[in-house]
């Protein structure tokens, strides 16, 4: 592999952009295809499949074996609410290899002392979220229980490509949330993207258990197709 190509691949990852390295195992030629250029590539269908599944692997092209090295950005969890659940979630998410960012305008909550290991933004979501950027490798967790803070974040998340949006609160709380969203024009398709009540139903009670159920749901969202079978099988 050419050093310039390797450097480019590393650069794309640092910038949170997906890319696929295409290696012809017969001719030993290589090229790097950036996410934005995939549709123009002769292997576009194969490349976009591989990227969607986040899976590297061998494909056949013109009778040649071609290896696709898929590089998808590190998953990022943006938690709205510097709350107890978020504190429990940080070390677990790190174990899973995800980045975590905390956003909460309440300075008493969003203190570096409570979150020594991750970036904390003591700002309103409508200020912080656009600056943090949105992509389909991002999950949003709405954990404040306070519509004043959660709702603006939810509006932003629903307009993004985020792969997961979860909102804390009972079915009743969520019912009211849905009404507010409908009033300002969000349709059923958008509202269905919200996982609420947040997390897998494992009977979670403690903050750590709720964090576990959220991360379980995020993992399922990543690894399972909508019909419940494993992606890639």
């Amino acid at each position, binding site marked *: *592999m050419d*050093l310039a190509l*390797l450097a480019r*691949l590393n650069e794309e*990852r640092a910038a949170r952009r997906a890319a696929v390295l295409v*290696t012809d195992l017969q001719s030993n030629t290589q090229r790097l295809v950036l996410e934005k250029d995939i549709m123009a590539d002769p292997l576009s269908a194969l490349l976009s499949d591989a990227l969607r599944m986040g899976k590297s692997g*061998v494909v056949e092209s013109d009778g040649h074996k071609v290896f696709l090295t*898929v*590089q998808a950005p590190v998953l990022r969890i943006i938690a709205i609410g510097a709350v107890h659940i978020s504190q429990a979630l940080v070390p677990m998410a790190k174990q899973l290899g995800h980045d975590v960012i905390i956003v909460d305008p309440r300075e008493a909550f969003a203190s570096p002392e409570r979150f020594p290991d991750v970036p904390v933004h003591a700002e309103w979501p409508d200020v912080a979220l656009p600056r943090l950027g949105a992509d389909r490798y991002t999950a949003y967790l709405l954990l404040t229980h306070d519509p004043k803070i959660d709702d603006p974040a939810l509006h932003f998340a629903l307009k993004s490509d985020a792969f997961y949006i979860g909102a804390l609160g009972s079915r009743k709380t969520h019912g009211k949330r849905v009404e507010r969203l409908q009033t300002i024009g969000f349709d059923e398709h958008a509202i269905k993207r919200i996982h609420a009540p947040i997390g897998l139903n494992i009977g979670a009670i403690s903050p750590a258990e709720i964090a576990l159920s959220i991360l379980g749901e995020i993992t399922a969202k990543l690894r399972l197709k909508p019909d419940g079978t494993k992606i890639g099988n």
Partner: protein
Amino acid sequence: MLATDDDLLRQAEEWRREGRGVALATVVETWGSAPRPVGSHLVIDAEGTFMGSVSGGCVEGAVVTEALDVIESGAPKLLEFGVADETAWQVGLSCGGRISVYVEKVT
């Protein structure tokens, strides 16, 4: 920390920039129960220093040896390891799986 295969690609770039001869080995196919998934990397320098893994430690030694060859010649190699190939290769995967590993020089 070299926890992920992404970190290993950064390591390969760094080593090359330091002027070392570097090879990158990648698991490209697996059959049966293979210890490391497709896409796993092993990075090797001309001194035989290596980082990462392409198996649970069963075939790394052989891959490093082949990698030194690749660094020398510049020609990539596609290697296969597994119980079925024990006659061709003196190493096999104890788990009974089979893996194919692409070894290329970073130029």
